[in-house]
């Protein structure tokens, strides 16, 4: 998968599914969502294939989070189906690790115990104690949290908390990684570090990923495909295959192609943002 395909498709527009593939893991099938009278998501269809990294970008408050929540299993669509390996999502499960913007780490557990939380649950009872500890140590090391194993989350910086959330998600070994603006609250430098770290860990252990973000640059840099989401109600207004392969590094950010893609996408998002403002 990783990033082959043409510089798609300002023209592909809102319609049509991607060509049928055998390795489709997630399928949104004409999904709509209403909260009472408010229509949040309107007739959204898209697929995520094995190992793909898909980003949803769009104005804040446009319903992107609702789409992720449907995949995570926190809410059900009013109509249409969210299919996970062909089966409608019926609730949250350990096959889908989730990262939230904040408050995701458990404040009453130390760094080490946060990472081990998922491993100590009944569903992992078959994993031996030594193995659980080894997994915990591995992600603690990968996320550079070893020196803070006994620290409380309250004493961690924002970036460290998100590293902890990522380590915890990975330790549970999910098939999917769902991220809802996970870096939104971080400063630019920390955010950039997190991008590198995410690239590294995804390179080492590929997950099928869905990222919600309002940063176009972040979306392009991390994703294999970007979907631009409209102002409320959410529709997909543009699908773009990102033409860069993996691994990527920061030099990509300065390439002409990246910059062109970024300004094109930014324009699209700004248009939606303006509409969103007009809605209010």
């Amino acid at each position, binding site marked *: 998968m990783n990033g082959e395909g043409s510089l798609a498709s300002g023209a592909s527009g809102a319609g049509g599914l991607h060509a049928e593939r055998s390795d489709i893991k997630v399928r949104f099938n004409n999904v709509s969502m209403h909260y009472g009278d408010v229509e949040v998501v309107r007739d959204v269809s898209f697929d995520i294939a094995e190992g793909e990294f898909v980003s949803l970008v769009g104005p804040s408050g446009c319903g992107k989070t609702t789409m992720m929540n449907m995949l*995570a*299993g*926190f809410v059900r669509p009013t109509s249409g189906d969210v299919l996970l390996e062909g089966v409608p999502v019926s*609730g*949250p*499960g*350990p096959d*889908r*690790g*989730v990262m*939230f913007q904040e*408050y*995701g780490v*458990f*404040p*009453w*557990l130390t760094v080490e115990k946060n990472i081990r*939380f*998922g491993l100590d*649950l*009944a*569903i*992992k009872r078959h994993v031996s104690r030594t193995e659980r500890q080894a997994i915990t140590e591995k992600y603690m090391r990968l996320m550079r949290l070893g020196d803070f194993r006994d620290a*409380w*989350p*309250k004493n961690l910086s924002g970036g460290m908390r998100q590293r902890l959330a990522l380590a*915890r998600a990975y330790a*549970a070994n*999910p098939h999917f990684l*769902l991220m809802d603006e996970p870096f939104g609250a971080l400063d630019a430098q920390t955010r950039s570090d997190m991008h590198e770290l995410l690239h590294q860990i995804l390179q080492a252990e590929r997950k099928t990923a869905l990222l919600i973000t309002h940063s176009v640059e972040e979306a392009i840099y991390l994703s294999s495909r970007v979907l631009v989401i409209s102002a409320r109600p959410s529709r997909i207004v543009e699908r773009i295959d990102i033409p860069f392969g993996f691994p990527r590094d920061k030099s990509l950010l300065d390439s002409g192609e990246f910059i062109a893609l970024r300004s094109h996408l930014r324009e699209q998002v700004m248009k939606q943002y303006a509409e969103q403002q007009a809605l209010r």
Partner: protein
Amino acid sequence: MERLTEFGWRLLPFLTVIVVWYLVRWSGLVDQGLLPPPHLVFLDIWQRSTDGTFLIDIWMSVRRVLLGLLFGMLLAVPVGFLIGWDRRIRRFIDPLINFFRALPPIALIPLAIVYLGIGEVAKVAILFYAAFFAGVIVMYEGMSQTNPLFIRVARTLGATDWEVFSKVIVPLTLPHVLTATRVALGVAWATLVASELVAAQNGIGAVIQNASAFFNLTTIYAGIIAIGFFALMMDTILRWASRRFLDWQEREAQ
């Protein structure tokens, strides 16, 4: 040395109060007969303690407070939990709680005597009443602030209902239990004297009652200081427990 300084700072406010007490007495603003000097009050405490009766009174009072608090919290935790948790239960119980909470426990003393007599049960029941309503409010205010995000996170990691309860909800509830206990303890002590109005036989409240019948101001002060002292001791223990077990909390939350 540092500990000594710390201890000194703890003691300083009380020493100041004692100094002010002497000053007020000596200034002549208050009739000296109406304000016994601190040293006589402490002497009274010492004498009453050494002859043993005061210790029994203190023990009776402490026991009533602890029993009222224990039963009150044993009910307040699950009830506060339920109404913080389920909207339907909240809609049903909330008006009742607000009605009964508004009733001063003292107003219930005649009823307590009628139904429960004048023994220990009536006294503990009044303290139970006071502790329960103070505790339940704190419990459910706290519970309704519980961030549902943590439950979602636990679910995405594969937690079962029981694991969500035992590994997420219980740790999130514990701070509120401790806060509720502290509030309920304060209210129980505040209600103690009133509860010991029921056929004052023993207890610090009874000591104060009897002393007041003989216009024995020194002993009234002795009783008041004893109540304050033990209330403060228990609160200190609970605060220590909070720090010890809730180290993970943000400072401002404590």
